């Protein structure tokens, strides 16, 4: 393997536990190369632990963590080429956004004048290069705080960005803006590892996804493969309709349907038709045709298993 192709981040058999025998990561082995990698898992899965280990905030109890072939807990020089955006707010909140970024630019090694220029540059990237940058951070909305945190991570144009839940609590405009920013950075050759507990937040621009659950790496691969995992496991679909029995007749003959169940909530005029399918991809193709041909009024369709938690439960069975 040539040097250029070597993975930036290597976790080998890493276990990290916290006080009270809380497991953060459990015999976790993974490596991350270039592009955008999404760390996806429910809350408490170990995503933040992964990023904290990779940024030397904490050290593993067992195992080896290497970033650019260096131990991030022992060798701070690794951070010259790494930007980190923590999940929690980490501000001196009475400071203005500009002051905050400037101080951190100085900590990165910029002189006073250069720090000012760099601050302007990174604030521009996150679209905060206006009068808002001169306001105290305490007055910022959640979205603006997220942007400032991302801005400080961009100081020095690092090759690798580690972003812990960068979309958490952000408004749709901020989410869209941050998403575009990450894509632009990827085009410039920046590698990004970002965590989220929502798959669709990261799948739009992630090249690779790593599914983490209860401190273990459950699955990894390109987005389409991970998405396929979701479609490969049995799905339950809930259809709220005024004629569930009538509608069931149309579904019962479909090969993609494994079972049907009807429930009648007493407080509703509608009934619920539950459909279990082993082949969601085929089922979802057939669904519109069946609904049109049945001419039954449908109030709501919901795929209750089309979420990560269901996939995790399926994969860990």
């Amino acid at each position, binding site marked *: 393997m040539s*040097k*250029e*192709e*070597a993975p*930036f981040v290597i976790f080998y058999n890493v276990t990290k536990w*916290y006080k009270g025998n809380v497991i953060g990561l459990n015999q976790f082995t993974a490596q991350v*190369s*270039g*592009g955008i990698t999404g760390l996806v898992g429910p809350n408490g899965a170990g995503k933040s632990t992964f990023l*904290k280990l990779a*940024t*030397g*905030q*904490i*050290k593993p109890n067992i195992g080896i963590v290497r970033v*650019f072939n260096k131990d991030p807990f022992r060798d*701070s*020089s690794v*951070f*010259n*080429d*790494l*930007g*980190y955006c*923590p999940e*929690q*707010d*980490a*501000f*001196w*909140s*009475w400071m203005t956004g500009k002051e905050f970024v400037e*101080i*951190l630019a*100085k*900590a*990165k*090694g*910029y*002189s*006073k004048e250069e720090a000012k220029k760099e601050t302007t540059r990174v604030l521009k990237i996150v679209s905060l290069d206006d009068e808002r940058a001169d306001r105290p951070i305490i007055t910022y909305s959640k979205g603006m705080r997220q942007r400032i945190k991302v801005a*400080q991570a961009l100081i*020095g*144009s*690092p*090759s690798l960005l580690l972003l812990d839940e960068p979309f958490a609590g952000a408004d749709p405009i901020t989410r869209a803006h941050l998403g575009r920013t990450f894509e632009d950075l*990827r*085009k*410039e*050759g920046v*590698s990004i590892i970002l965590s989220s507990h929502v798959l669709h937040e990261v799948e739009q621009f992630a090249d690779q996804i790593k599914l983490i659950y209860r401190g273990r790496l459950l699955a990894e691969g390109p987005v389409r493969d991970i998405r396929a995992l979701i479609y490969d496991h049995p799905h339950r679909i809930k259809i709220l309709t005024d004629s569930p029995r009538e509608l069931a007749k149309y579904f019962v003959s479909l090969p993609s349907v494994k079972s049907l169940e009807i429930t009648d909530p007493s407080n509703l005029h509608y009934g619920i038709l539950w459909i279990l399918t082993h082949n969601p991809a085929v089922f979802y193709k057939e669904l519109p045709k069946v609904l049109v041909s049945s001419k039954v009024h449908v109030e709501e369709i919901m795929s209750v298993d089309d979420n990560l938690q269901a996939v995790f439960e399926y994969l860990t069975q």
Partner: protein
Amino acid sequence: MVENDYKSNSSAKIYERGYRPWKRQMQPKKMVLLNLIWEEIKLIARPRWVIIMFIILRFLLIVKDILTVYGISTGFFQQFPFSLAYAINVGNNSMMGVTDLLLAYYVASSVISRDRVSGAYALYFSRDISRTEYLLVKFIASAFYMTSFTWLPAIYKYVAIGAFYDFTPIDYLKWKNFSLLLISLGYGVLVMAFLNSLILLLSMFVKKGWYIAIIIIPLRYISDTIAIITFLLKVKYAPLYAGPPSYGEYILYWAFGISNEQLSNNLGFQIDFLAPISKIGSIAFLIVLGLSILLFSLLYYKIQKLEVQ
């Protein structure tokens, strides 16, 4: 934009994934740390009202100090080195004087505790700043304030007491006098090293600076009480039993070369039960120095092991 298009039959864009080593030219590490120390000094000075309050307090203490110096010089304390040692130790810049404690509380709560509570640890430790360098920056920045609060009184008390003894400018610069000022400044550094290590170490465990004050202020009063009781009981090493808060004056007496006899004469009563001042003072000095090293070592160890939760 670095982009490959070897998949000509695909609309997918494949971007550069190779690692390009970071080659940006930055300031030397020394400059980075100096910048950070300066930023930290400025950060401690915020909010501004706290520093204004300390300046006012300092000014009031100058007035009080001048009155003390006047009392010492016109009263029964007749010998110059003794009056200076006594004045240096009195009240606000003893080993754990009130001002020191207030300042220590404020500095501690705004240095490490602040980073801990705000989560800013994560921002420091995700830059090319080792834990040792982080400690160095914090220690020097708080030492800047603490030392200034011990040095400033030492200087003006030297000048004021000299004035009461009709010092000429030449007298101030004479080595036998000037060396006493240097000793006073050195004593200030010792006080700073002890208090700074203690306070910074405590600040790693508490969320609010007030908790540190609650822990430390009673120590001062317990120490005073023990000092009085052991003195009344005529214990040979009475001052040593009282602990570091009471060591300051004996370290100064020892460093200034004041004998038991001089001490008795100046205090106006016999202290013949006491072990030689040179012995008490030097032991007190070694204890404070040892404790400072121990506390700093503990602080260093804690910082090295620090994990950002």
